[in-house]
């Protein structure tokens, strides 16, 4: 009896440990926040992102090879949070910018207009898969992909937050 209970416990805790490990390193536990000058600040789980319409972008990464990234256009995420896009992107709203932060502290900026399809010809996405699989450790759970940008320094990895601000 005793032995049996012990075994179940071990299996259970081993399962839990592996489960937690997968959950965290594969990245499902990582939430994304959208905040700042928006009418509906959001916290999205990976399932929420998965459920949104994806766009594919094929672009060259640092390795010089073409990869197909699939993700949600930033404009859709910002629309869902109620950022001033489309007909509202005029006047002082044109002084808005978007700060995207990574888990490691890296930060980059886009002008809000760079993200709006009424201004920009390219679609910047928040990718959650590459070539059909999850993003690698240190890159995922989410990565920004900017088609056509010559240097991938704004292809920020490990994205954790998107914050809309006014230039002051």
């Amino acid at each position, binding site marked *: 009896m005793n032995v049996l209970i012990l075994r179940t416990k071990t299996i259970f805790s081993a399962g839990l440990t592996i489960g*937690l490990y997968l959950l*965290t*390193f594969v*990245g499902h*536990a*990582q939430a994304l926040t959208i905040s700042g000058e928006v009418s509906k600040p959001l916290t999205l789980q990976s399932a929420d992102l998965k459920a949104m319409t994806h766009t594919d972008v094929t672009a060259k990464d640092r390795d010089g090879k073409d990869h197909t990234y699939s993700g949600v256009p930033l404009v859709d995420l910002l629309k869902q949070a109620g950022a001033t896009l489309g007909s509202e992107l005029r006047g002082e709203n044109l002084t808005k910018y978007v700060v995207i932060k990574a*888990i*490691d*502290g*890296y930060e980059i900026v886009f002008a809000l207009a760079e993200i709006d399809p009424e201004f920009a010809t390219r679609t910047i996405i928040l990718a959650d898969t590459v070539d059909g699989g999850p993003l*690698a*450790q*240190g*890159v995922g759970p989410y990565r920004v992909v900017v088609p056509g940008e010559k240097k991938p320094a704004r292809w920020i*990895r*490990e994205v954790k937050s998107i914050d809309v601000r006014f230039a002051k």
Partner: protein
Amino acid sequence: MLLLRRPGFVSMTINSKKMRVWTLGIIGIIALGMASWKAVDDPVPTGPYTLQYPASFGGRFTIPADNPTTQEGVYLGRLLFYEPLLSSTKTISCASCHQQARAFTDGLALSVGVTGKTTQRNSMSLTNLLWVRQLFWDGRSNSLEEQALVPLGHADEMGSKPNTAAKALQKTTLYPALFRLVFGSDTITDVRIGKALAQFERTLISANSRYDHYLLGTYQLTESEKRGMQLFNSAPSMERNVRGGNCAHCHGGPKLYQEVFHNNGLDLKVTDAGRQVITGLALDNGRFRVPTLRNIALTAPYMHDGRFATLEAVLNHYSEHIQNGPTLSHELPGQTSGFHLTRNEKSDLIAFMHLFTDSTFVNNPQFADPHHRVHRVHRVK
């Protein structure tokens, strides 16, 4: 003249006419050191303090609106930084673990405070803190004002229960008048102690190393330093036949750090979770803030736990012993255990890192202990 304008330097001038007053202030401080019997009554320099730094350091910092940097505040902060009365045993000051000659570190793997027990982590260099937004190895504090109260109260550092240090200072002849000058009333509180310390810490600007002179075009690199710089700045690439240690990715820029958190592969299974303790994110396991490499030749031993005694040992780590744990930085070669630098490459990198030593910073009399043994005796009632 310590504050002469240099080309490419910015001055956070609140009132540039005060420059002369400030110069007099410096002379006053030096004179104070020499003529201790006058120290307490000496006119204390007053007025806005001009922070001077190279334009390349940038203006990305905020000084809290309720704690502007003033000459009198910096003067008080410096006295407090060197004040053992802040500790429960009256034996430990901030400077015990942050010594100017070592670029404000203490030469120990782990520091020792009032209890004799060691701290959990290695003492950090206090340099260019004006720009640091997330203080400590794990980035857990967001302002110098708030940070200063941590060692003050920590049982194993200065061990002062809330407001006991403030009470001890209140009983002296020196401090109440200085607090009145700085804060408008002679009531001493922990919060005011933190504010004055923060003002002094913002002035600890290091921008006069040979590397800075190289960036200004006034220092010529030796061949070895040139090769070291090349390795420091380059990500290695087999295909393009480029050798490198990719150091600048994390320790680059004029201030010699990027404010990011990484796991640099010290351990496969970490014992100190670092950043994860603050954020709760598994991806942060074993990540620590990238420390500045300014004055790195003076701040041994190295890493958050002081495990490496020399720069050679640090390079051996990056060269051969990087541990490929689950949160190892993407920028470090975990598969190959390191960059596999040759002996010559290591010595070139070390020659380059010695350029980061700023001897005017570690010898600047404005940052030195202002207390004099003679007036100390009078001060404590």
